[in-house]
């Protein structure tokens, strides 16, 4: 399994764990400040985790044209997925509050954060789909 696959697995697991914790917090009626801490830790893990846990090995070719192609395709599909998700979210909100309604700024901010998470999730999913989901050889 190469570095990109490991990062993709890490992102998928971090996102799923984060959502599970949020649902758990909501079910157990955990105070909002603890939920905020959980969300912050989730975001920190997604941003800071890969560079810390999956460092590049010096001297070894770890990234070539095939990796570049897979990364490019996953970025395009990821952005498309996040764009569609954000659009769908705003349209759903529009139907909920109507043309003359209003939404709190926190909703706008959270929608943006959720679309970023969607981007990372879709990108990781595409990376793993193209390499293969397991194996030392990148799926081959």
């Amino acid at each position: 399994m190469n570095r990109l696959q490991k990062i993709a697995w890490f992102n998928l697991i971090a996102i799923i764990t984060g959502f599970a914790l949020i649902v758990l917090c909501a079910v157990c009626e955990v105070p909002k400040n603890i939920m905020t801490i959980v969300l912050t830790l989730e975001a920190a893990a997604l941003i800071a985790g890969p560079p810390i846990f999956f460092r590049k090995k010096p001297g070894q070719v770890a990234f070539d044209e095939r990796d570049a192609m897979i990364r490019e395709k996953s970025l395009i599909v990821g952005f498309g997925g996040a764009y569609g998700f954000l659009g769908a979210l705003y349209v759903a909100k529009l139907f909920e509050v109507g043309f003359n309604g209003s939404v709190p700024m926190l909703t706008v901010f959270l929608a943006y954060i959720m679309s970023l998470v969607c981007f990372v999730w879709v990108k990781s999913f595409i990376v793993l789909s193209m390499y293969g989901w397991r194996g030392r050889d990148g799926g081959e």
Partner: protein
Amino acid sequence: MAGEAEMAENEIRNQIRRLRFERGEMTQQELADKVKATRQTINAIEAGKYSPSLTLAFRIAKALGVRIEDVFQFESENI
């Protein structure tokens, strides 16, 4: 883009595995190091799952000491 890759995948055959073994059982890693690619990419090319760029194809041919057409063959009934 995916369609092109799939088409290339089916139409391009390669002799990398045979040529590697004819050259002192060269490993995928050794070939990968020579052509500045990852072992996973060499594996994917050998398996016909990825068609390399022209540059990489020439590098592979040079590393194996043969002409590019001895490594890669284009087989199509459409042309």
